[in-house]
């Protein structure tokens, strides 16, 4: 049970990280003109942060417990 609980707590922490990264005010930092790999900065940032979040969720979900 304690393994399950600690996994749950990690997921909650990950959720908080996601809420932070994909939300006001962090998004304002990228609300600028310019391009990253040819893609507007804001679009590129959102997709990269989103993909990273999914990656972390995969690592955690597939870990033991």
């Amino acid at each position, binding site marked *: *049970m304690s393994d399950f609980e600690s*996994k*749950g707590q990690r*997921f*909650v922490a*990950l*959720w908080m990280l*996601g*809420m932070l990264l*994909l*939300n*006001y005010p962090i*998004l*304002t930092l990228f*609300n*600028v*003109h310019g*391009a990253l*790999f*040819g*893609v*507007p900065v*804001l*679009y590129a940032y*959102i*997709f990269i942060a*989103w*993909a990273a*979040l*999914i*990656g972390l*969720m*995969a690592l955690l*979900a*597939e870990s033991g417990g």
Partner: protein
Amino acid sequence: MLHGTTIFLVSFGYLGLLFAIAYYADKRADAGRTIIASPYIYSLSLAVYATAWTFYGSVGRAASDGIGFLPIYIGPTLMIALWWVVLRKMLRISKQNRITSLADFIASRYGKSALLGGLVTVIAVIGILPYISLQLKAVSNSFTILVQYPQIVMPGEIGTAPMRQDTALWVALILAAFTIAFGTRHLDAAEHHPGLVAAIAFESLVKLLAFLAVGVFVTFGMYDGFGDLFARAAAAPKLLAMMTPFEGVAGSYASWVWLTILSMMAIMFLPRQFQVAVIENVDEKHLNKAIWLFPLYMLAINVFVLPIAFGGLLHFPDGRVDADTFVLTLPMAEKKELLALLVFIGGLSAATGMVIVETIALSTMVCNDLVMPVLLRLHRLRLNERRDLTGLLIGIRRSAIVLILLLGYLYFKLAGEAYALVSIGLISFAAVAQFAPAILGGIFWKGGTRAGALCGLLAGFSVWVYTLFLPALAHSGWLPNGLLEQGPFGIGLLKPLELFGLSGLDEINHAMIWSMIANIGAYVGVSLSVAASADEHRQASLFVDVFRQTGEAGGARFWRGTASVPDLYNLLARFLGSTAANNAFGAYANARGLRWPGEDLIADAELVHYVEVQLAGAIGAASARIMVASVVTEEALTIDEVREILDEASQVVAYSHRLQQKSRELEAATAELREANERLKELDRLKDDFVSTVTHELRTPLTSIRAFTEILLDEPDVELGQRKKFLGIIAKETERLTRLINQVLDLAKIESGKAEWTASAVDMKEVISDTLAAMGQLFAEKNIEFEAQLPEKVSAVTADLDRMIQVMLNLLSNAMKFCDPNAGWIYIALTEMDDHLQIDVRDNGRGIPQEDQATLFSKFRQVGNTLTDKPHGSGLGLHISRQIVEHFGGRMWVESSVGEGACFSFTLPTAATPGKSTA
């Protein structure tokens, strides 16, 4: 050329293929070899979330405000991060209580309340209507546009409007027929639809592939990759502004945040998401994969939304083409017939998947939580006479499906025109978000009550109707526009879109703020002020503490009354059919080692509960409760009794925790005891060895003493010289005996801790000099040379002077015994180190083999073969010496190799304080 007939045939071919997949999956499941027991199928089926809204509407939204479509998918991704905590709990609750739908879940949580189940059903049906109409609109529009190929004509521009309306109606009817064929072919007690899940998973693949195909075509076919496309878009000022959307255009941070929150709730509480994620889930472990695969799916289907939106805006700069149709019109404009057809099929997949699952979920709710409770109450007696009610149940569900789709069509006709696809869908999201307080509160907070949930839902839903639903009708001209502009009866504060003067927000934000305040406020406020009934207490405990329950018997302990087995059986058979009822009773009997059919079963609380749970699977918890109550005589538990049972239960849990604790302690104690026992055994063995060695050592001198005394006794004429020699031997052996006994006594004292130690400051240099002086004569007799290297002055050690002399004597006499018999040499060194003195005694004897060095300091260990070599001592000396040195905090060891002599060394800590060191 794409004829209407071609499109029609391809569409039907596709639907036929879906049906074949569903049929195959159902057959496999019936044969016990289901194909849907896979985390990948589960993840794909969750993607029923992506509907025509995603397929057509996202691009439309992106074309108006850049990234406004993204929170709809980022919100769910974030919510899924909490699935491990939230959804896992809902899954467990639903499995244990045989939950069949969202309404059933809420009704069941708040004391199996039929009223609450009905309210949830009404909210869900009305709330979802805009969403269904969205699908109808998308499918009929895409069909209408595709038929015009190669022209690109928007549906609104076509003169023959009635024909188009008919398209939507036809779509609704065809989908209704198809859904009925899919979802209500037979009745399953657990509401599992393996065929449906397989077909939905397939649809998810189709729509993803179709969308990616368009995305790749636009990005890499029409343009030269992302960079080229975005660079060209950046050249147009209007499009450039969309790349930093938070500054100017309609989208604002508030809207981003609210859309994220709204979508977080939608992914949990849309009836179809609840259906696929909770009801159709076959294994809790599938969550592990779904938690990241499903978000990955959403990411993948969104990658090309912006490129398609910009591509469309660049390609149709005059704004004549509706951005909601770019996905279809771009391939058409480029004359890619097949791609356009594929897009149409993809959109059809997205729409049909949503409509089928949503209407099945809603029809289950309508049947179980709205119609049946009413029918059972109204015509209870007549229904009880019917032998088989399965036909009635299926009939109700089929009618509900047709009705819901027709209502969706009606909404499309009434209000579908004024809004873009995404805006229509968001109205539904806001409706289902009203379930969040009752459900989340219900599974984490025992204090939530039926009255609280009822008030919260009513309040939230009323605000939703007033601020979103009515304005939608007003926009379309079905209600006077004055309602929006001046407020009802001209009261400005009550304007539906600026309630109480709250302005500057978009419709959805505005509605969410007020409806959530009303909903949560009423739920919490009423829950805290109105006492809960016994039933509610029981259900609250079953839900909130679900991970502490074991098995389905959890609810049985709350029941008291009398029932008969045949009554219960007949009840189940009426709703499930006699085969299913027989199977259910058989399984129940089997699990308890009883026979069915037979006289074995007793209609106890457990069986009654079991039947109720089985029944709940078919007709919902509230109806099942009514039906079971009709065949058993129940004694209602008072609220105090329920509290008592709950207290008992929590005491039992606490008690079992204590038991576990005790048993762990016991195990630890046992391990310690076992260890102690091992040590004791070892000591016992050592003692035996010791006794036998001591006895052996005592016998050797005794034997020679006895032999010589007997000679002297028996033969009086022994010469004087001889006699003297014999007496000398006797005296020497006696001395040896005494020494041995003294040493044994000494050792016994040391080991038992009874030895008397007198600790004082001892000057080791003096000890060594004194010992050497005493031994000097002996060394000289044996021709042994000795060398001593002693510093001028050393720090004092705290020790017992006599004991130190004993140690030195022992080491020196050992060295004397073992040094080279012909050219004996002994070297003594005293060295002062940082905080200790080291004394070395080296000889030039034959050395000690490596393997003997470890045991040298044990009792009675003598180096060499004791059988052939005459022993040179008791074997206790070194052992005692080491004990003494260790007693004073020092260490004793030996370094030697064969043929090189041996060096015995020991250390003693110097006195810690300067005062002592000079003493």
